[in-house]
């Protein structure tokens, strides 16, 4: 081994903020190489992924629309990960939120009333929370890994959505396509900035960031979650309830994911279809890490990754690249993030083999 890792006395404050930047730069370099390998012009990566999407007012608005679900889910996941609660099933919780909230919207039909949207929002949060309550129960009562249970439930949720959209909730006037009716006026998320698609969900995401940051940084609850994640026995010693905290972490993540789901279907999408999310629940995991598991960081991370979604769409349209390019970009970004994280905790020391000196 030509180098050795030496633990730092305390976390390096410089690298805490620099490591995500380093990871992003590294990812861009790799993407450029990938684009070149696929015969696209060299600067194309940088332009497509970073510049083009935000080169117009509409672009920036779209950034907000794409970032909203990522941030909403990401802040919830980040707090959970801090507590060592690995909610991998956010995608499924998002779907359940879409089903629950969307179901209320469909039931409201063409009615308009101030109660419809709040009911949908509440329904979305409860739906997502319910779906996360299952892994919470299984973990606290039966010690079952929440990674596997929440993930299995994602597949179940997806199948449930397909069933509803192809079966009982199918739009009778939809020409047989697997989709529900469009939501009525009263059940559609209001647009906040006219001329764009920026909807209530974007505001909700910002509120969620503020609330989660408050919990994380200032409250006893946030402290309890962090202690649980770093040293579960110390948490027990302090009298913190590991079970209660696990429930909270999962329900929070689930509720926020459910909110993201209902905002998506009642906002930009406008109906229930089999694909209500291009993998937001999974991308939010990357967002959480990009944000170093800190709610403010998650906000920034969400914007960066929203950029990557827009960039991916641009790449498809302008350069004819397949949709999968987004997944690769995100996976590589996460790799570099995790690798760069090293520098926060350790110093790299070159080791030279010095022969021991001394009396022969």
């Amino acid at each position, binding site marked *: 081994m030509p180098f050795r890792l030496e633990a730092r006395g305390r976390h390096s404050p410089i690298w805490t903020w620099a490591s995500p930047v380093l990871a992003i730069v590294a990812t861009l370099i790799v993407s450029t190489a990938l684009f070149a390998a696929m015969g696209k012009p060299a600067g194309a990566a940088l332009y497509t992924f970073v510049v083009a999407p935000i080169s117009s007012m509409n672009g920036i608005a779209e950034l907000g629309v794409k970032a909203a679900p990522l941030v909403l889910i990401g802040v919830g996941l980040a707090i959970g990960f801090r507590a060592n609660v690995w909610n991998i099933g956010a995608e499924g919780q998002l779907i359940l939120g879409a089903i629950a909230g969307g179901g209320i919207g469909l039931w409201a039909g063409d009615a308009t009333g101030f109660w419809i949207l709040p009911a949908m929002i509440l329904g979305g949060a409860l739906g997502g929370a319910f779906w996360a309550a299952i892994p919470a129960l299984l973990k606290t009562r039966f010690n079952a890994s929440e990674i596997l249970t929440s993930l299995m439930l994602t597949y179940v949720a997806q199948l449930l959505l397909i069933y509803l959209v192809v079966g009982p909730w199918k739009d009778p006037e939809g020409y047989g396509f697997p989709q529900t009716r469009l939501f009525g006026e009263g059940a559609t998320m209001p647009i906040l900035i006219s001329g764009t698609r920026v909807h209530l969900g974007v505001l909700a995401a910002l509120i969620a960031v503020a609330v989660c940051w408050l919990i994380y940084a200032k409250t*006893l609850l946030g402290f309890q979650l*962090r*202690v649980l994640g*770093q*040293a579960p026995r110390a948490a027990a010693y302090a*009298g913190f309830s590991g079970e209660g905290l696990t429930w909270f972490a999962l329900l929070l993540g689930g509720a926020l994911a459910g909110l993201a789901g209902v905002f998506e279907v009642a906002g930009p999408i406008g109906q229930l279809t089999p694909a209500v999310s291009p993998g937001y629940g999974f991308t939010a995991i990357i967002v959480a890490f990009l944000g170093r598991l800190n709610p403010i960081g998650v906000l920034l991370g969400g914007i960066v990754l929203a950029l990557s979604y827009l960039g991916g769409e641009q790449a498809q349209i302008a350069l004819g690249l397949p949709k999968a390019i987004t997944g690769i970009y995100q996976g590589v970004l996460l790799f570099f993030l995790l690798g760069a994280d090293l520098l926060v905790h350790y110093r790299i020391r070159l080791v030279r083999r010095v022969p*021991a000196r001394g009396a022969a």
Partner: protein
Amino acid sequence: MTQNNGNGAPGARGDTPLLALQGISKRFPMTIANDGISLAIQPGEIHALLGENGAGKSTLVKIIYGVLHPDEGAIRWKGAPVSIANPAAARALGIGMVFQHFSVFEALTVAENIALGLNDKQQRKGLRDRIAKVSEDYGLRLDPDATVHHLSVGERQRVEIVRCLLQNPKLLIMDEPTSVLTPQEIERLFTTLRRLAAEGCAILYISHKLEEIRSLCERATILRQGKVVAECDPRQETAKHLAELMIGTTIRPPYHLQEESAETAPARLEVDHLSVKSDRAFGVDLNQISFTVSAGEVLGIAGIAGNGQTELMAALSGETPANRAEAIIIDSRPVGLLGPAERRQRGAGFVPEERHGHGAVKDMTLGENALLSAYRTKGLVRGGLIDMGSTMRFAAEIIKGFAVRSDGPAAEARSLSGGNLQRFIVGREILQSPGVLVVAQPTWGVDAGAAASIRQALLDLADKGAAVVVISQDLDELMEMADHIAVIANGRLSPPRAVDQVTVAELGLLMGGIEAPSPERRDAVPA
């Protein structure tokens, strides 16, 4: 002087030492662990390496065993210069090592554990018969098919020793071997070691236990802060002189007021038929534990690791609920079913065995660590929000009051040395003015200066009227500090006895579980 030949006569002194270290130095980022150390061990010699925690003994020994490489210096084996690249190379030379924290694999059998310590295939042939022979020869009984997790600590050490013996070592290194043995087991170990030395195997015996070294070893090298400060024949020195060489100053024994009268002092902690099933895979169930500690009293609970101390600590702190509320009573209020935070509010404090990950969170600041146990008792949280100002002030108070060497309340716990972190944890509990304080292994792995001040702090707390319980594997420490002493063995507690009315030998028998304690008597025997 006769030349050394493999089977040296007992005590033969050749011109050529078996092992000679010259000018060995090793640096780590935060410290200089070894600084120009030279020492020589003759064949068949029992040589002590003496020094307090942090003096550099473990580092030096890891260098000899090939786990670490020196930055400077030379090693000679039987006169020829060698470079010990790794433990396999050390074993090939004939060096065996019995580790302080045993390197045994709990999920594997005894035979498998031993096979892992043997270098080559040849040695692994006919292993079970060879294990049987060696354990028979040296009186170290072992069942090759037993899973190590089931073995007692003394038996695990036997696995380590047999593993070394099968290699026919010329030099056997023992790193703090007796901290986990009963006095009787220690004697058996010494018999084995003396026999090995008589057969020509040199022993490098690392310890800070002065009486043992004086009893066993013929030469001693004393380290302090990484340097050799003395070399002597320990049999010719007093324990006090050796201690002073080790520490560099004279030490005062802790000062403890005699309590007025045990009869009139109110009982502050009463444990009554406490029985708890262990939730650990190979834990020990607590069985009808009963004792009482009065105001101003220090009760010592002695015992070898693995006899229920962890479970007892967890039951007393509230991390595990007791079998009924009245099983644990603090200041006449039953707390058996309450959690740690509620028990703290009723005046209890706890210092668990492990600093890292249990008593403190190493990646958090000292301020946050102060919050860990004091958030309610010191009013550091209001309306769910943490009052960071008060928290940091409290942490600063602890740092000042207990001489914790650190970079201040914002320093991370991991940047503190073991002794300083322990001072912080003990100080944190004491500054919450508990009426009852339970500490486990208060000075484990802690340098002598911090150990002395921690013990004094505990005694001062008792003198102010608190009831203090000290659970420790260090019998000397308990005999020095406690008013009464009880022994925990196999989850049962012996009736507490006054410290000046009991002998180490009696305690040793109890620690070995020889005498079954009677559970009915729960009153402390008055002095």
